[in-house]
Structures are given as C-alpha cells and as structure tokens.
C-alpha cells in the first residue's frame, strides 16, 4: 500500500456523474420490477377469488348454510353438517394444540437454553413442519382411531389435526416470545421473580398477540386439509351434525355430558371434503355447489385472517 494520504488521490471529476444517472435509472427499474412481481402475487389471489365468485356466488344463501346436503335436489342442498364439522374440528384442534404448542414454545425459548436436547427438539419440529399431511393421516389412523380406540370420530380428527398444526404453532410462538425484549425478563429476575413467574406475568402477556396470530394461521391451515381427514374416516354424506340435534338432550348437566360424549365420538364431515365430493359429480349443479362451498370456506378463512391482522394492529398500537 502506498504511503501517500488518501485525500491527495482525488479521482477525476467525471468518473461518477454519468454512471450515477444510469445507476439511478437502474434502481428505479428494479423497484418497478419488484413492484410488478409483488402485484403479480397479489393479482393471482384476485383472479382466484374472481373465478370462484363467478361460479358460486348465486348459490350462496342462508339456505345453503342452514340445510343439510342433498343429492336429489341440489338446489336445496346446504353445508350445515360440513360447517358444524369444521367448527367442531377447529375448536377441538385449538383446545389440544394450543396448550401443548405454547408449552413447548415456552420451554424451548425460556427454559432450555442452547443445550443439545433443545437444538434436537428444534430441528425435529422444523422437520415435522415439512412432513406431508397425508402421513399425519396415516399416523392418526394407526394411533387414534385404532390404538386409542377413538373410532372414526371428530375426536380422532381433531387429535390428528393437532399434531399437524403443532409445529407451526410452536415456531410462530417462539418468534413471538423471542421478540419480547430481554430487559423485561432481566427486570423481573432482578426483583426476585422465579422463571415461571417471569414468564407467566411478564413475558407471556407481551407475546400473546403475536402468538394469537400464529395460532390463527395454524388453525386456518388445519381447516383446509382434506386427505388426512378422509384417511381418518371423515365421510362425504352426513345428514346430521355431530351429536345430533340439540333438542335431543335435556338441559341439565347430565344432558350436557351426554351431548359431549356423543358428539365427540360421532361421525362427521368437513367443508373441504364436502367440496371435494361435489366437484367430482358429473352433474353441473354440483359444481356450482362446490364453488359456493369454496366461497363459504374462504369466507371463514378470511375472517380468521382478518382477526389475526386486527390483533397485530392492536398489538402495534399498544407498543407505540
């Protein structure tokens, strides 16, 4: 390296300027290109929605949501059993997967440190997130339906779906927990709190909105699944809701227990399966029904996503 000071080696004055204009233009072109691709991605969504809306909107009505499926009179057919089945599945899946998922995330993020066990569990979870959903169906059939004797019921379906969405919940919750500034934890420890007290009273409330987003997104993935549930034994034509009409049961606590135990072990169907069945029929009325079903399903999913967005916005408002 020469010993001459840098400031004495001034570059000729015309080296940068022309290239600067070119570089700026390139920059603008790149920005436009990125924008185009982004809009392209968003545009795909709109095309998809437009297609489905065109085919199915005329068939979506109150009747569609309140009626049972019908083979003989497609004009009168509805998705009631499928909607109830999906709701039961979503609630039960949430009940099973959320506590376990949160527990695992809290353990990995707050308790485990960087031990080999923790890294192994982490890798394991990332791997499980990539396993095809139908393998979970095979697992659920072997473990829940046969071995644990839960029959081909809503319960088996929910347990299987819980395993499916668990990795996603754990990963999303870990991100939420990691985003909580460590100063909060340090302050609690400094005041003599135990680890659990810190987590329970300080970290968890701060991370909760982010966790909720992850949970909702994981559940919406579980709702859209078809193949594993067919393997578990979800049916295609179910003219009843799990547990049968509520009027069958007395309004007492024993009645409630009866209803729960019957409903949990009852046969069921879900919206994607009903749609899948309708699409495969030859008669065109069923195809319109399928499109209407997709609209309702997307409506439910959009609702869940909107909730996630609202929670995120509320969380950010709280922060600032």
């Amino acid at each position: 390296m020469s010993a001459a000071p840098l400031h004495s080696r001034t570059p000729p004055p015309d080296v940068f300027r022309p290239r600067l204009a070119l570089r700026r233009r390139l920059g603008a072109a790149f920005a436009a290109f990125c924008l185009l691709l982004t809009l392209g991605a968003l545009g795909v969504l709109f095309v998809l929605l437009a297609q489905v809306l065109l085919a199915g909107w005329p068939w979506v009505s109150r009747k569609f949501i309140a009626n049972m499926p019908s083979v003989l009179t497609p004009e009168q057919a509805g998705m009631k059993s499928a909607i109830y089945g999906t709701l039961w599945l979503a609630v039960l899946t949430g009940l099973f997967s959320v506590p376990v998922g949160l527990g695992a995330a809290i353990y990995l993020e707050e308790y485990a440190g960087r031990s080999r066990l923790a890294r192994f569990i982490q890798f394991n979870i990332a791997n499980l997130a990539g396993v095809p959903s139908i393998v979970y169906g095979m697992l659920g059939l072997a473990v829940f339906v046969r071995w644990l004797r839960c029959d081909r019921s809503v319960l088996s379906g929910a347990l299987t779906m819980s395993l499916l969405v668990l990795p996603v919940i754990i990963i999303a919750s870990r991100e939420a927990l990691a985003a909580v500034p460590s100063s909060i934890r340090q302050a609690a420890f400094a005041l003599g709190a135990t680890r659990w007290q810190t987590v329970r009273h300080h970290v968890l409330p701060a991370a909760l909105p982010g966790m909720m987003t992850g949970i909702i997104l994981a559940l919406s993935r579980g709702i859209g699944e078809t193949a594993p549930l067919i393997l578990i034994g979800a049916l295609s034509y179910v003219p009843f809701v799990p547990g049968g009409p509520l009027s069958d049961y007395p309004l007492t606590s024993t009645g409630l227990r009866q209803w729960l135990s019957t409903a949990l072990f009852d046969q069921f169907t879900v919206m994607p399966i009903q749609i899948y069945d309708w699409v495969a029929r030859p008669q065109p009325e069923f195809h319109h029904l399928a499109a209407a079903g997709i609209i309702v399903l997307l409506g439910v999913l959009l609702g869940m996503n909107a909730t996630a967005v609202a929670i995120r916005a509320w969380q950010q408002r709280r922060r600032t």
Partner: protein
Amino acid sequence: MRKDRLGRRVGLAAMLCGLCGLPAASGQAPEKLSGRVKVDGSSTVAPIMMAAAEMFRAEQPRVDVAVGIAGTGGGFKKFLEERRELRTDINDASRAIKAPEMARAAQLGVEFIELPIAYDGIAIAVNASNSFCDSLTVAELKRIWEPDSPINNWKDVRLGFPDLRLKLYGPAPDNGTFDYFTEAVVGKEDASRSDYTASVDSNVRVQGVAGDPGGLGYFGFSYYEANRDRLKLLAIDNGDGKPIKPSLPAIRDGTYRPLSRPLFIYVNKEAAQRPEVRAFLQFLFANAPRIVENPKVGYAALPADLYRAIWSRLEQGVAGSAFADPNAAGRTLPELFSGQKK
C-alpha cells in the same frame, strides 16, 4: 288405539307383500326407529346410497345414514376392521369382493351378504368433432389399451381413419372402473398401457376428451349423460358385428356388452339384524328402480324379479360371495343370483 289399528293394517300389508317376495313398498315400518347406519366404499356406488339415505330420511327421520367414499378397497378395509365397533355396516363396491378380502372375512368371522344393486355402463367417448369414428370393436379397443401398445395415431386403429394423434384418457389404476375395463377389454385385470392421461376425477377426463380433437376416453355412463353436448358416444361391437350404443335400456338388459358392470353392496350379516339397518335395506330394495335411475344418480336398475331374488338372499341370510366359485367368471347376474335360493 289408532296406532294399534294402523299397526295391524300395515302388518297385513307387509305380510301380503312378503308373500310376493318383495319388501313392503315405501317401507311403512310400524314404529319410528332410531340409530345409525354406517355405509362406506366405492365412490361410484355412493350416489345410489346417498339418494336412498336421503329418501329414507323422509320416512324415518331419526335414523342417521352416513355415507363415505373411501373407495371399494378402502371400504372393505373398514368393513373388515379388526375391532367390531369400528366396522361399517354396508360396503359399497364397484366390483365383487376379492379373494384376500374374503380370506380376511373368514379369518375375522365376519359373515357378509352380497347384494347386487344396479348396472353401470362404461361409456367410450370421443370428441364431439370426431366425424370418422362411430363405433369400435372390442378387439380394436384391446389393441389400443393393452400394455406397451404402439398405437398413437388414429390411422393405426383402423384402415381409413385420418392421420390424427390419438390422445387417451382413462382412470388411474387402482380404481373400480379401471379394474373392470382392463378385465373386460384387455382380458387381464390391471393390464393396461401406462402412457395415457390418468385421472381420478371423471369430470377431468370428460374435459380432456371434450377439449382434444383426437381424444378417446372411458368413464361411467352418468358422466357422459351430464355432458352430452361435448362428447360423442361410440357404439361397441362385442364381436358379433352389431355395434351397440350404451343407453339405460341397453345396459339394463345386458345387450351393451362387455362394458356393463354390476354394482354391489355388501352387508354385514350381524348388522342386518338391527331394525334400523334392515328397515333401510328394505326401503332401498322396495324403491330400487326409482332410486337407481333417478337422473341425479344415473345408473340402470336390475329387472324386478332379480331384485326379488336378491332380497330373498338377505331374508334368508345367504352369506358369502357368488363369485367365490371359480366357475362364476363370465356368467351373468341372473344366472348367479336367481338360481341361488337355498
């Protein structure tokens, strides 16, 4: 009091109907039943059972009949589950029960009653713009579809056909229609060329043929019926020089050969003794022609006396499959089932 008189009148009617060998028409069961009937199996047969379930619900609203479409083989898996509580009551099948399944049934002690329920025709269709081909012989079909077939162009099918690429559309292997077609046309089950466009969904096959001028495909007759304006049906010559087009009458009386196939339901003998299952089956058989040939279902009904003979099998609890007999291959349903009263 009123219920008593009604009950007696219905009982008399039922007795009279029982004498003619048919279950009481429109299933006037004396009391309101409740319970669950578990049906699963072939997605081809499922529309029949779903229609029957829907109509039956109007009569017996407290009996819940749920239908699945796990496939004929998948349905047999559920029909022959290890644990009794997990077994389905009725299995829909687009083919007769196979030897390994029969062996498993014997091993588990499950007695089943085999009940043919309808005829389905497999339609061979080409694109609507195809003006040169009106019929094909079974021999030509075999040459087109057999394993490693070199035929890729219409001109190789028959002298005089134009030079147009032949695009084949068929079901994926492991499907009742596929099994039946390969057995009936190529002569051996599962023997088929592998380079055709395979699809599980018949609607897609229809779309494929309808969109391809050189297309040729096969699927259930009801799929052709729903898409008449986009497809051209071919008449099939079974070797006697007389090509026959599939139609409900031709399928029903067996003149559309060899591509009319029977559809079955297999009933668990023990389950058939439950009143709600029996009532459902009674309803199904009493109204079979109406259910099977409903435009939303689209199959061909069996002749009335054949239904009677089949119903008596159930009444007498004749278990086992008529196809277990190696001599059964090639015989028609009436031959196998009418002469089977024990």
